[in-house]
């Protein structure tokens, strides 16, 4: 029997819990095992059908449909259709599975003659036990073969979320991930950590690869950092979520071993969408969003720190009966924000070439009633796949994005202007009243400072997959990620605080070049029966990373106008820097399987990095990172009780590294001007020619399983991590002759944690599906050795420190000793004490979803963090600046303290000492409080219009869905400050503090999606 090439393509026989998809070539419409000669002699039939998503009704391509025990199977096409021929007649068990969705098995009676039609619906599962994941090798691996936990989020999950960026996607939906803080301004990104803080001097953020190529994902240095501003843009937040096919979060050293040095903090792999053979399939989205900042500050204050209402006095200024002179005519400093997003993509192609093209534009105006605060984004992507040759697949992925943000000059942006007055002007202009404010709109003038940032990022990657033999695969990823940020801060001529005006230009450029080759060879094991399998993998990676920066500060504008930096009289600072570093390595890995039940994987990676010291590379040349993993599927045994369905235990150990910063291995000198205008050299950095990477060693054990016909999926992981050779700055003893701190590999710290998730399909019939899912994670990272000086601690910022024996980072300060007292003056400890960790050790989420008639959905998502300590900068600085805090407790305490200081010894009677500390002293430690919160993170509802309605519309529409999405509708907290999840500062900062930023706004989005 001959089969046309365009219809059939040979594939490996599927396995029980999922088959090897052989990745990128997945364009087949149908698959049949043509060599199954004996089957041809039997009575056979044909099975066909459509696989759709349970939630959206959309057809699902690439679903692996297989017939158990026959070796027959195939992939669904772009329309979700599958076709399997030569199926033996009689009852057959059909299994359908897709990455990110639950597996479904049904019994079907195959008859000869007419094809048997059988349709499947698959549901997205929050906890996924099966499917392929990328592990750094050429083929990827099935989950049952992998010893470490890997989280995965699919495009369908993403499309159902009211998210603005990737960080929103990861927050609470991926185990082990902590997203620190929540954006309050359009364009802001957050800090992402995997399994807690991992380094003192190195990077703590995971590496991010997009289509196999490393990308700039971190916060820009100037943004929220050296250029002021209260929040920052990140590379990760710039990715359009609707371009994403799936995200894999790879945690733990065992997983990241194959990524080598720099991967100690974990890896996030993002895969963008690709085309599929068939006619062009268009998808268009229109989003309209409104945002609203609720009440600001204490509920007792009807003015909301004069942000919500600046027309009268409020608790802090009860005598004020007329609007502040600066108050906008609307009577509030806040306004309704508005966002609009339009994107369209098209995918399609032929057997040989497929394409996915997308573009999108969005603009969001923020919530401050000044300036044009807000952000605009433009995205363009083109992904192409060439399968001209049967054994060779080439994917080319290109993208460009441009983001323009107008930041609000709050927080540090104003603090730097005038630390005692302008700082308050963001949140309240009441401070002006003390100075006899005149109607000159000084707040508006303060806000006249412009902080604009434009980020451009281009990413190009080529993924070449060559399959010379069915069991021998080569994969090559080559790519370049180029990004730059241009940030201007301008105080115009006539600026209230600096009438001559200033302007700062900060430009950063980052480039990542990735070259990644891997090959895998699958076979049995010679001398052993077919129960034994092996996959040998080898490969090597090289990456070059360049950072370039330039900054110029000028002052004294020559007059009003929109000046360039050239137009100013003085350059007060000019600075440029560049570093280029290289990393390369090889790996060898062997995976051995037995009965598709037991898998043992051992690997070794050799790595070198140009930031290592010369002596280190001379003596060792390569650093070796080993890994070993094993998994065992208990439920494959006959004795396994059916009630318990499937269960797999796993264990993994691995090592990975974090390199020192550039230049630390070098002895460097600085030039200086001596007297008589002589040039002199002074030693700048003693250098450390033996400097090497931090080595992170991590164990994890886990259990995954399902119960009740797959209705309950669960996973649990426990891990322990130890970092040795930690990079810390130490002072050499003076007798060493050097007087400069230098980095040395003497630190150590350790972490432990657990991660659990449960996904329950509570009710499921043809009309109604109810599911719940929950996640809980706990992490504790504790400092061991920080320095060669046992008395040392390391100040991170905002009273947070790394300190030996203490969780890292911890909030440390002098502590109120009589906080439960009444009528007493505050008494503080003589030495600094630990308040608690500044990162939340506990995080949990709970999701609840209902699907009705396969087209109407309701989803809610709660997030909670607790166990950490947070201080509030806004409140503490308002107290210190003698403005006060508008709660009755604070107002009473302040009055009592004033009376007491005036000689009334009885004035403190009945006043809580804690209130005295917070409201009259107001240091950061006085406001350090548990930052626990529970938040109703998202609420969504979607409705997919009946297809028969849609098809009647002109224009060839196939599907239309409308979604209502809401974020941040409600939260609960005991935190006394502004908001426990609105954090001040750059996403690059390790320290955390609340205040100086607006609370995260409530977001309401209407999304209409059309497929045609």
């Amino acid at each position, binding site marked *: 029997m001959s089969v046309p090439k365009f219809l059939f393509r040979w594939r490996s026989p599927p396995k029980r819990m999922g088959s090897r998809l052989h990745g990128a070539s997945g364009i087949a419409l149908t698959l049949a095992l043509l060599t199954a000669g004996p089957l041809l002699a039997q009575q056979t039939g044909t099975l066909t059908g459509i696989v759709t998503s349970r939630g959206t009704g959309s057809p699902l391509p690439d679903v692996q449909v297989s017939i158990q025990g026959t070796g027959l199977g195939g992939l669904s096409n772009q329309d979700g259709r599958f076709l399997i021929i030569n199926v033996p007649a009689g009852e057959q068990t059909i299994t359908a599975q897709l990455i990110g969705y639950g597996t479904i098995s049904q019994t079907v009676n195959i008859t000869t003659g007419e094809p048997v039609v059988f349709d499947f619906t698959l549901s997205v599962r929050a906890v996924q036990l099966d499917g392929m994941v990328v592990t750094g090798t050429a083929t990827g691996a099935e989950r049952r073969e992998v010893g470490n936990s890997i989280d995965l989020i699919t495009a369908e999950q993403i499309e159902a979320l009211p998210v603005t960026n990737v960080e929103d996607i990861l927050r609470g939906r991926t185990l082990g991930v902590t997203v620190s803080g929540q954006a309050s301004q359009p364009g802001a990104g957050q800090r992402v950590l995997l399994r807690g803080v991992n380094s003192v001097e190195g990077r703590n953020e995971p590496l991010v690869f997009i289509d196999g190529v490393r990308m700039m994902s971190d916060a820009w240095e100037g943004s929220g950092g050296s250029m002021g501003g209260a929040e920052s843009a990140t590379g990760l937040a710039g990715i359009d979520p609707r371009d994403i096919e799936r995200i894999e979060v790879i945690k733990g050293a065992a997983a990241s071993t194959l990524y080598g040095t720099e991967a100690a903090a974990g890896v996030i792999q993002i895969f963008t969408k690709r085309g599929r053979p068939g006619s062009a399939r268009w998808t268009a989205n229109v989003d309209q969003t409104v945002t609203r900042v609720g009440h600001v500050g204490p509920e007792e204050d009807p003015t909301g720190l004069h942000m919500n209402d600046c027309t009268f006095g409020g608790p802090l200024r009860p005598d004020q009966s007329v609007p502040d002179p600066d108050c906008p005519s609307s009577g509030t400093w806040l306004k309704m924000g508005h966002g609009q997003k339009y994107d369209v993509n098209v995918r399609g192609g032929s057997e040989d070439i497929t394409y996915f093209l997308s573009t999108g534009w969005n603009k969001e105006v923020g919530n401050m009633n000044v300036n044009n605060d807000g952000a605009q984004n433009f995205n363009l992507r083109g992904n192409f796949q060439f399968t001209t040759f049967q054994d060779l697949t080439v994917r080319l992925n290109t993208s460009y994005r441009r983001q323009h943000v107008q930041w609000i000059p709050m927080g540090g942006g104003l603090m730097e202007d005038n630390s005692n007055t302008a700082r308050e002007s963001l949140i309240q202009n009441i401070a002006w009243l003390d100075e006899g404010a005149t109607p000159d709109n000084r707040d508006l003038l303060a806000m006249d400072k412009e902080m604009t940032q434009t980020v451009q990022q281009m990413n190009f990657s080529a993924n070449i997959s060559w399959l010379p033999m069915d069991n021998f695969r080569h994969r090559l990823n080559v790519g370049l990620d180029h990004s730059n940020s241009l940030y201007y801060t301008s105080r115009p001529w006539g600026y209230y605080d600096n009438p001559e005006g200033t302007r700062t230009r900060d430009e950063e450029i980052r480039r990542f070049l990735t070259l990644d080759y891997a090959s895998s060879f699958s076979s049995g094991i010679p001398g052993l029966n077919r129960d034994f399998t092996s996959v040998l993998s080898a490969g090597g990676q090289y990456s070059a990373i360049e950072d370039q920066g330039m900054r110029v500060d000028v002052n004294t504008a020559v007059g009003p106008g929109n000046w360039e930096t050239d137009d100013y009289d003085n350059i007060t600072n000019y600075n440029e820097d560049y570093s280029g570093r290289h990393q390369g390595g090889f790996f060898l890995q062997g995976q051995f399987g037995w009965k598709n039940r037991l898998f043992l994987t051992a690997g070794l990676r050799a790595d070198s990095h140009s930031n290592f010291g010369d002596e280190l590379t001379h003596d060792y040349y390569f650093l070796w990172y080993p890994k070993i993993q094993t998994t065992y599927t208990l439920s494959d045994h006959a004795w396994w009780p059916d009630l318990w369905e499937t269960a797999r235990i796993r264990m993994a150990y691995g090592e990975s590294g974090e390199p020192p910063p550039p230049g630390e291995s070098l002895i460097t000198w600085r030039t200086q001007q001596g007297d008589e205008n*002589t040039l002199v050299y002074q030693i700048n950095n003693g250098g450390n020619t033996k400097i090497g990477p931090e080595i992170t060693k991590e164990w994890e054990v886990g259990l995954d399983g399902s119960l009740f016909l797959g209705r309950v999926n669960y996973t649990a992981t426990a891990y322990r991590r130890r970092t040795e050779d930690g990079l810390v700055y130490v002072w050499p003893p003076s*007798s060493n002759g050097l007087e400069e701190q230098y980095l040395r590999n003497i630190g150590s710290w350790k972490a432990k944690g657990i991660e659990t998730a449960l996904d329950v399909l509570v009710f499921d019939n043809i009309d109604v599906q109810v599911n719940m899912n929950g996640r809980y994670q706990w992490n504790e990272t504790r400092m061991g050795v920080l320095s060669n000086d046992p008395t040392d601690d390391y100040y991170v910022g905002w009273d947070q420190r790394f300190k030996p024996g203490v969780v890292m980072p911890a909030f440390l300060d002098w502590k109120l000793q009589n906080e439960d007292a009444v009528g007493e003056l505050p008494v503080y400890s003589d030495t600094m004490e630990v308040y608690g960790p500044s990162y939340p050790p506990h995080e949990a989420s709970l999701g609840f979803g209902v699907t009705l008639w396969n087209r109407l959905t309701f989803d809610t998502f709660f997030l909670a963090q607790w166990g950490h300590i947070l201080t509030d900068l806004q409140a503490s600085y308002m107290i210190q600046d003698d403005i006060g805090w508008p709660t009755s407790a604070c107002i009473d305490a302040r009055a009592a303290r004033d009376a007491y200081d005036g000689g009334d010894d009885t004035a403190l009677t009945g006043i809580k000492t804690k209130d005295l500390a917070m409201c009259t002293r107001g240091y950061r430690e006085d406001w350090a409080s548990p930052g626990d919160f529970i938040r109703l993170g998202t609420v969504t509802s979607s409705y997919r219009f009946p297809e028969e309605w849609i098809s009647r519309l002109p224009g060839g529409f196939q599907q239309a869905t409308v979604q209502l999405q809401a974020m941040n509708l409600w939260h609960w907290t005991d935190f006394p400050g502004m908001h426990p999840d609105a954090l001040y500062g750059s996403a690059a900062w390790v320290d955390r503090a609340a205040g100086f930023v607006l609370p995260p706004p409530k977001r309401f989005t209407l999304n209409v999606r059309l497929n045609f």
Partner: protein
Amino acid sequence: MNIRTILRRLPALAVTAAIAWTTGCGIETEVTGITADKDISRPDLMHVLAHGANLELSHMHLINYAHFTAAATDEITNGYNSSGSYRRRAVNQYHNRPDWVYSQANESGWVAAYAAERMTDVNEANGTDPSTDPLIAHMRINSALAYQWLAEGQCVACVNWGPEGGELLKGSGDIYDPGNVVDSDSIMTMAITWAEMGGTVAQAAISAGRLNEYEPGFEHFIPENSLYASYAIQAMGYLWLEDYAKADEFAAKVPVDWAWHMYSHEENTWRNRWVYYSNQWALTTVWGSSIGTTFRDVEDPRIPWTVCGEYKEGLTVGGRRRSSSEYDRYTTNPGCQTYNYYGRYRTYDGDLPHYIQRKYSSWDDELVMLSGQEMKLVRAEVALRNGNLGAFTGYINDVRSYHGLDPIDVPATAGALEYPNAEDDAWSILDRESLFTLWLDSRRYANFRRWEHPFWTGGHYKTPDEALDNAGQHRPKYMRADGSLDWCMPLPDGEECNINPLVRETQWCQRLYEPGGG
């Protein structure tokens, strides 16, 4: 070659490229804005390196040394919040000022030695003779000076880079190579050795005719200067070690008009700390010092100072800050400042009348580190110890004559050191002449230690404030290596004790001798 062939070969090319990169073909981090160690091994940069070594030696911490030791002796009175504390407590581990001196002395010694090593290598690479290189001689003197000061200040110190060599910077295989404890005599011995090395090279440079290898204005690189410095350091060293004959021998080789200044300051307001302390901020005052009390009426060009403010009659320093109305102001007197807070007539803290020192009044005034005048005083002391009062008087008069002062008569007796100074016997004359000649040049602290000066042994002057606050307290002593006690600087906590595992648990890092316990 078709595209398929090319694509098929891509993996192999990639592997080859990766191997090439990771096996050392240019895998180096490139960082701009730095001067790497390898960049400065050029003959034309050796002067720059030498300037840098000079700057380390004269860095503010060592200039601080002059201030700190002056306040710890009777040279000057320290105002502001450390008022009297150096004098009352001398030093304890909590003071960061002696920490800075300690660390800066170590760094200065090392940097100069490291520079000399590099200069030797560069000379050899360029076919020139390092044994006659004036810059190397100068660097050896720098190391010797640093160690001389370390010995004079410390009872014990940790030392790593001795003149006996070893591979500099590498130590015992790690850059992080802390030193072991040695006593001040041993440190001084090292200083002498380094001075000998410098002298040898300087002598060879002179013999080789390398007399003019310096930039205009930097005559201190003249080998003759290094040679005299070598003699002077050895004289001071042997005096410290109580080998008076050798001290006299080397002191005799130095002409009275020769001096070694604190060269190559940073070009900023730190470069002469006396101007900073007394003129700009009025942190110090001559009021209450020996010069402001015992020798208040002495007219001597070596100790120029001016009364800029005075308590009103009947007022003394008290338990509270004096208001401005309680001062008589003489700010129009020569040298008094007309700017800056209280500095016009009282110290910055407002507590003390400002008697401004005028020995150093310009940022460009160079402090004197070594001088022929001091060598005369060394010889005078040796003569005095030998009972030769005539010779003693001759050396004293050499100094006085150098300053245009009338000679003194031969004293009747050798006498003894007293406080306040009795002014009539030979020891009192030596004490006075030494104070006047070396005033504010960081030299008196060492003499006080050697002489066990009565100012330190209970008879010291107390300001009324000190008397109120610290009645009966003595300065602490710290342990010498032999277990005996001495007035000196302790091993600093932060700089050495906490981070040098070789001494962390030893007796020198135990706080056995808290302030007031001596």
